[in-house]
């Protein structure tokens, strides 16, 4: 390889022919943004399976789950993805927040402990990805530290990032607020729950991660 470099031979045409068609993509976001709902929809649409359970209680996903070989076809292009559904990222986890949802103190403390481990796992996964779908709750303020941290990490690593502005089925959603906060990245307004704009998301996935 060193000799090839020294000779100055350009093999970029070879790279284009063998362009990577399999990418490992992480689904990231804060707790309760709809990451697992989106992962379930993608995996169900293209393989017929599901990835994980969803809940109103934050930090339902406390272990990263990987689904290999999900082939997405859209507009004549195709991409095969290994999809990693990650636990919600957070800077604070208070077990009292789970008790509000009716969990016992013991259950809440256990959930909080597992959630802290899940956050660490999600952070570690950033080192092993080819790109990220960042799921934001379009009804919430987009300038959260989690969003800023994930976007900053992707920009620093020069890896592709696609923002899914989720929950557009809710009346107070505002994907335009997300667009004005992060205009440098592609944004697809979706409802992972209802399936709105999901075809558009697949188009963008095939384009950005293919």
């Amino acid at each position: 390889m060193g000799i090839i470099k020294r000779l100055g031979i350009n093999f970029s045409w070879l790279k284009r022919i063998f362009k990577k068609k399999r990418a490992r993509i992480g689904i990231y976001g804060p707790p309760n943004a709809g990451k697992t709902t989106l992962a379930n929809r993608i995996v169900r649409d293209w393989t017929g399976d599901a990835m994980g359970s969803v809940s109103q209680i934050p930090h339902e996903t406390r272990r990263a789950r990987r689904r290999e070989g999900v082939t997405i076809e859209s507009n004549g292009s195709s991409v095969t993805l290994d999809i990693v559904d990650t636990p919600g990222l957070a800077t604070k986890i208070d077990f009292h927040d789970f008790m509000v949802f009716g969990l016992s103190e013991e259950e809440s403390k256990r959930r909080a402990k597992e959630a802290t481990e899940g956050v660490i796992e999600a952070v570690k996964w950033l080192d092993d990805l080819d790109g990220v779908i960042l799921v934001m709750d379009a009804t919430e303020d987009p300038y959260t530290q989690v969003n800023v941290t994930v976007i900053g990490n992707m920009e620093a690593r020069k890896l592709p990032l696609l923002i899914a502005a989720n929950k557009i089925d809710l009346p107070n959603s505002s994907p335009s607020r997300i667009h004005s906060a992060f205009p440098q990245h592609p944004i697809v307004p979706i409802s992972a729950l209802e399936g709105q704009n999901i075809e558009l998301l697949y188009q963008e996935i095939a384009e950005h991660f293919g």
Partner: protein
Amino acid sequence: MKGIQLDLISEDKLDAMTSMEKVRLILDEVRNGKILILEKGLTPNEQTKLIELTMTEIAPDEFSGIEIESYPVKQNDNLLNKLLGKTTLKTRLTVIGPAAQLKTIKKSRDLISALVSP
């Protein structure tokens, strides 16, 4: 006089520290109940390190984590960098405190509004 200690840490001091030193300092001070304002924020890599370490220190009824707010990083695309095809990221002011005492009310590209409780 009773109150919450607020420490403003200069860019020069932060520049002289390694990533791990910064993260350790932040966590130690925040665990002692201080609120820190960093003139120059943390790099994205330092932010994830801080999140990781914070998670290892969370303990029920003792420490529930941190509140951290920073402006989004800026791309430092001056003419020289453009000519060299390089882009570097410029971090910006950051506020960090104990989650139990610092709560962000509102945040936009250029404004962080927070509430501090004793």
